[in-house]
């Protein structure tokens, strides 16, 4: 069977987007009151909740404490009803452990861990609905939750995926359908202001000549998402700030 083309001759993708178009991102900070910071983020049909606890004392064995910086602890779990087929276990499987590790790698690069020696920062993400780009949605939601918790970071961590269609067209923000139809998949977690890459992962293959193009596409996606997240943070701060009686009330016309 001929493989379904990821991009039509008119330049439209399977879900009607252009090659450089992101899925719709909707987010909200401060969804829960018990965690120190929380956020909810929808990227297309992928829906993710993130909660941040800390910085607090090391939980469990004290031997884990790092004398010069904070320990960043991440847990990735997926709701059993999040995927098309029911998942048996929400967490603890190989895939989730790998995701947790990747989350920790990305956030350790951006959180100013040296400010909190001998303490711990917990980042918990929960995928409620999975539709491609789960890791990216988790990173973006966790960034918002960290901002909500007021944990100092050098800058936002933003993640985005990219793929290559028809051998030469880079696609940004790959959906589940496009992931499954067999194209290569490149995930990048970046610090968009300085342009540094905190994590990069690739599956499948394409020619090395295409790599710069695809990476640039993912980084452009990161910069676009950064804009959206930054707006959301500013809006949230204005809203909560004006409720406290500070900030420019005239600007709040939502």
């Amino acid at each position, binding site marked *: 069977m001929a493989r379904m083309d990821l991009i039509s001759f008119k330049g439209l993708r399977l879900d009607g987007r252009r090659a450089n178009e992101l899925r719709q991102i*909707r987010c909200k900070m401060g*969804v829960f009151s018990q*965690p120190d910071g929380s956020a909810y983020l929808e990227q297309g049909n992928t*829906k993710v909740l*993130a909660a941040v606890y800390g910085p607090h004392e090391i939980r469990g064995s004290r031997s884990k404490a790092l004398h010069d910086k904070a320990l960043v602890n991440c847990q990735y779990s997926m*709701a059993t009803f999040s995927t098309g087929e029911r998942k048996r276990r*929400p967490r603890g499987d190989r895939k989730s452990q790998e995701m947790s590790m990747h989350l920790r790698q990305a956030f350790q690069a951006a959180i100013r861990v040296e400010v909190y020696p001998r303490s711990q920062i917990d980042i918990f993400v929960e995928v409620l*609905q999975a539709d491609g780009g789960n890791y990216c949605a988790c990173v973006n939601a966790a960034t918002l939750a960290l901002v909500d918790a007021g944990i100092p970071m050098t800058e936002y961590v933003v993640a985005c995926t990219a793929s290559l269609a028809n051998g030469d067209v880079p696609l940004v923000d790959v959906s589940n359908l496009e992931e499954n139809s067999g194209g290569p998949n490149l995930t990048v977690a970046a610090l968009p202001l300085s342009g540094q890459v905190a994590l990069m992962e690739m599956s499948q293959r394409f020619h090395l000549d295409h790599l710069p193009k695809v990476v640039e596409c993912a980084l452009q996606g990161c910069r676009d998402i950064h804009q959206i997240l930054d707006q959301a943070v500013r809006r949230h701060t204005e809203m909560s700030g004006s409720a406290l009686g500070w900030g420019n009330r005239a600007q709040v016309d939502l």
Partner: protein
Amino acid sequence: MAEILLSEAEKTFILHGVEEGFRCDGRMRLDYRPMEVETDVVSHASGSARLRLANTDILVGVKTEIDTPYPERPREGKIEFFVDCSANATPAFEGRGGEELGTEISNSLATAYQSSQTFDLTALCILPGQQCWKLYIDILILECGGNLFDAVSLAVKAALHNTRVPKVKGACLDGGTVDLQLSDDPYDCCRLDVSDAPCLVTLCKIGDHCVVDPTAEEETCSSGSVVIAITEKSLVTSVFKTGVGSFHPQTLIDILKVGQTIGLSVNKALRAALLEEEQQGRKKECFGFLK
């Protein structure tokens, strides 16, 4: 449960308040906190509901699968409860930390739904003795603000109300194998009758009195609570006690009476809310967690 540290003075304050009939948030002993329920929030599930009871946040997704019925009950479908305590609720649930609480809640739901007079499992039968639907009811606890049992049971009932099971157009036995024909149209499906599904009502003993819908702080002050599963027809399908304390038999009987009336009104309120949401039809705005 979430770690809540209360001093002796705070505990006494709550205790004395309950004795006088007042609670910290201005409620009487038998008042519930405000509740919000929204159905159809997860598109990958056959039915879903999110319930927020003050600070307690529950998300329930129902998935359907085809299975073979139990040999001793060939005309009944299957139902399975799974409670996942997300670490989002409290860091204590990280890893396998929430499993104990999860098992306790899922077992209590399974007992409450076991009676043949509650939820009609025969409706889930496709071919007696051969094929039936299995409902996986997956409960996700996202935030704990006390009174988990009540909130979970209400959310489960709302999710079951929202569940759509695909219609089977034809089923026949061909040799030893079953041949099923499912409808191609995803909108061609049947609803489940949840009018007999039970709701759990927790009565929490604080001092000599009982309160309903305890907050997390009140739960730490209580020595034990009684959980009653009640249907809309005021049938009690299960009763159990949780916590460390003990009850006098007379107190237990009094509690049951109180719980029955409260269970009826809770059932009625949930039904009204679900009907109201359904009447909005397609015009209904889907908020999810963005509200």
